[in-house]
């Protein structure tokens, strides 16, 4: 049987993780092809409802990654991202969502190797979990209304 190839989406900030992934490229560090990067100016911009949207659209795992604490290009965007992340996680728990498919990590512009490792680890983890199949459940949720409710 062919091995399951999970689909991974990474929501990353432009200044740290996107540049870190660029560095992985410049350094020719090889990693799994399963990841697709969506670029944001800052993790502070990331509307976490997009994560549910990604799962609805076929993702099996999601990475959110930005600058290390104190390193944010915009001073504090990553702090707000982190704060909302906590609220969002509680919401997911409420929904009974399998949070093992979600990954949060700090990758700086200098950490090309860390990025490659992160992708490989996530792919291995999600491969163990198998394909995400509960998207029907998500489709019934009006993501926007819940987003407003929880202010995430």
């Amino acid at each position, binding site marked *: 049987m062919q091995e399951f190839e999970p689909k991974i989406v990474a929501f990353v900030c432009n200044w740290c993780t996107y*540049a870190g992934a660029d560095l992985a490229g410049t350094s020719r560090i090889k990693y799994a*092809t399963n990841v697709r990067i969506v670029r944001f100016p800052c993790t502070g911009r990331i509307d976490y409802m997009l994560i549910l949207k990604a799962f609805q659209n076929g993702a099996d795992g999601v990475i959110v990654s930005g600058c290390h604490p104190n*390193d944010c290009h915009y001073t504090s965007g990553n702090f707000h991202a982190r704060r909302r992340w906590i609220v969002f996680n509680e919401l997911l728990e409420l929904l009974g969502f399998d949070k093992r498919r979600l990954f949060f990590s700090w990758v700086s512009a200098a950490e090309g190797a860390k990025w490659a490792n992160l992708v490989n680890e996530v792919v291995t983890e999600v491969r163990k979990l198998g394909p995400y199949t509960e998207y029907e459940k998500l489709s019934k949720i009006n993501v926007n209304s819940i987003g407003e409710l929880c202010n995430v």
Partner: protein
Amino acid sequence: MARIGVFVCHCGENISSTVDCAKVAEIASNYPGVVYSIDYKYMCSDPGQNLIKEAIQKHKLTGVVVAACSPRMHEPTFRKATAEAGLNPFLCEMANLREHCSWVHFREDSTTEKAAELVRVLVEKVKHNEELFPIKVPITKTALVIGGGIGGIQAALDIANSGHKVIMVEKNPSIGGKMAQLSETFPTLDCSQCILTPRMVEVAQHPNITLYTYAEIESVDGFIGNFKVTIRQKAKSVDHKACTGCGLCIEKCPIKKIPDEFNAGLGNRAAIYVPFPQAVPNKPVIDRNNCTYFLKGKCGLCKKVCPADAIHYEQEDELIKVDVGAIVAATGFDIKHSDFFPEYGYGKYADVIDGLQFERLASASGPTLGVLKRPSDGKEPESIVFIACAGSRDPAKGIPYCSKICCMYTAKHAMLFKHKNHHGKATVFYMDIRAGGKMYDEFVRRAIEEDDVNYIRGRVSRIYEKNGKLIVCGVDTLLNSRPVEIEADMVVLATAAIANSDSEELAQKLHISYDPYHFFSEAHPKLRPVETNTAGIMLAGACQAPKDIPDTVSQASGTAAKVVALFSQDELTREPLIAYVNNNTCVGCFLCQSVCPYLAIEKEEIRRRDGTLVKTVAKINPGLCQGCGTCVALCRSKSIDIHGYTNRQIYAEVSALFNRREYAGV
């Protein structure tokens, strides 16, 4: 109806060796909305750009996706080409096929598949792109230079001589930096202070330069052209306007046994002090941590003897706010000290010293007036061992990089010793001799051939003391790894050059990135080596990576050119990727205001024609907004959006990520 053009670049073989570019172009041609799709060897070349321009005009494209390298590399290039063809440049997007795909994967089906998907994502995004127009902002034509070493001095003088104002901030009581501490410089052996001090004086006297010594950066806000900086002027306890620099206070100060930083701990200074005779400014400060008056409340001798009544104990730190248009970080470096080396005695042997200490011992202005005397007993050493790569190129010690300057200064040290003591025995333990640079290798050869310095290829395993001698245990790897034990009177470790201990903190204040060793990161390792990723902030010297004097000076002048080029314009155009508010839906909760790091959100009152208030809504100040988007994610009523990363664009991207799954109910 969208008419999108897709342009797939081979980047020579950088992309095409693992991605089937023709196939990507073919797949893309079938994406809805794509009316033109082509692959080409070098999209960024003139013919490549012409391909795009011609297609825009011929096919009346409404959007362009260039699938090539990272947008951090060539986005400006392709947006410019797009604009030249008459299409708004912000209707051009890049899919990152090189850094994020071809370079990081092997040649297999999934790599080409991924490349095609990346293109699809950007095609969907660009359909929702809008025409945007650059924002114009004024420029404050004053530069801030942080650090008064040779890098900062050079940058400041170059900028000031071009007719612009410069503010220099130095944390020590004098400018001069590490170079002021050196005895002679390689490869010419000219006296370091002799060539440096005229520059220091020039800085002090330059009409365009304002100098703050004994001062640090408190905070930095704003953006290119419009930074707002707060400088903390530490209390000097001496009124420098009144002080004549007579030095009577220093002479009378009863506390005289404080290890002297300028002499790398090898000499002593008083609690009120001028770091060195040629200091600029040549006026003292009081070191409050060691002054009896500040510790115990009594003494006051300096105040009593001062003929100019310049001693002001009550002086306090002062916060000075300045507006600047550009910032140059030239904060230099530090070195590891001998206590970093367990196998070389944890610093317990007084005669195992670091390179900077040797400079002070060899310097005519040093604690021994240029006579080489070892610290333990003042004896003049007959045999000195120099150890290169002490801590550098040593992953086990957390410093895998080459410190770059050690090979040269070690050769210089050995030479200086041999010049002072012709019969002395100089031994250098080294791993490789890295003497790339004009007249550099010749210099090392001179040390070996003319000055009879014994170079042994091998790393020293340990040093111990026996009967007043230091026993240095190594091997000669060029002689069958034969064990070598040398009895030395003194050992000089060419210790690793490291980032300043506070460099991380400063980087965070400046919002610039730094590498794992806390050196500041340049915007591009090859093509933008003096700029940082934060527009308007540049680098000079060893705060970026270990560098010698000529490299530092070159970079400083390069940085100055960048600053001057920026100041040659009266207005600056900024990318309009900023937030905007939908007045119709904004409920005026102002949650956004509380999270905006730039205080860019103001209140706007919406009134009827008769002047009655309808509601108060948020308004983004386009001059202040930097486009982080935190407000967008936080807005409950989804009334804020951000150009370039609009909700529509990003939802379109996410929806296009994968081939949509088939599932019931939808």
